[in-house]
């Protein structure tokens, strides 16, 4: 085969490649992508609100149980015990020190990495894109 024939065949191959139709994706592919990304159903309440409401509800139930089981004395006694423990913990030097160390570590880590939770899923290609 001559070089000219070769070129002609490669040109024909290029044309055939460009004319090749794309694979037909499954019918529900687009909708499933959109439901997982742009149209992902979002909760009407932020996470912290739900967590706070859940915690408040649990405390309320617990207090009601205390009232039903032991009457007012058990209720007040429990509240006193909680208050004493909490104030003791806050005023404890060791506890305050550990809290300070934790906060400082969190601050350092966030300064080094930047607080961008989405970055941990950035792909290699995404990283290349930054270059």
């Amino acid at each position: 085969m001559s070089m000219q024939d070769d070129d002609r065949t490669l040109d024909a191959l290029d044309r055939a490649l460009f004319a090749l139709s794309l694979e037909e994706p499954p019918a529900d592919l687009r909708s499933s992508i959109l439901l997982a990304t742009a149209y992902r159903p979002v909760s009407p309440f932020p996470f912290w609100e739900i967590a706070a409401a859940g915690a408040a509800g649990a405390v309320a139930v617990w207090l009601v149980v205390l009232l039903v089981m032991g009457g007012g004395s058990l209720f007040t006694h429990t509240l006193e015990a909680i208050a004493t423990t909490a104030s003791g913990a806050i005023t404890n030097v060791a506890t305050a020190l550990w809290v300070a160390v934790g906060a400082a570590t969190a601050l350092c880590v966030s300064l080094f990495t930047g607080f961008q939770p989405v970055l941990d899923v950035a792909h290699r290609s995404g990283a290349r894109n930054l270059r």
Partner: protein
Amino acid sequence: MKAMPEDGELVALTLRGNPEAFATLVERYDRAVYHLAYRMLHHVEDARDVTQEAFFKAFRSLRTFKPGAKFSTWIFAIAYHACCDRLNRRKRDSGGEMPDYADTAPGPEAQAIALDEGARLRRAIDALPEKYRAVITLFHLQGKQYDEIASVLDLPMGTVKTHLFRAKEQLRRLLDDMEVTET
């Protein structure tokens, strides 16, 4: 008539909280990404998963997308690397032997389909080694933009051109062989 927004513009709109903008990007590229994944993996479910995964990753890391870069190159690169991960997993799971999902032996149905030039070309592409299959599929999707293909594959442009040349040579031989077999 309103002009179609550029990909970069759609990315910016998505980042500003416009879900329709990302939907447009999905509409533009889902078929091409699926095509790339299917040609690489030869498996409908795997190709579907990779396509979903690619768009999901792109959506979550959209902030890292550099303005001015091509979204198509970026999404193809994400999909291509996801395909490579899947192919590596397959290799690991099969103890080094690659289970080939593509049936390259011409069965009666395949022979009937082979009459169609497009189907014959598809079968020839599927019979190419992985690296050539990737480069030829991207050449089909991105045209002669060698730098874009090189970005997706993370290869030097010279290597891409060499791979492409060899891929075409092999493709031509495969097509010739198919023609001889059919006649």
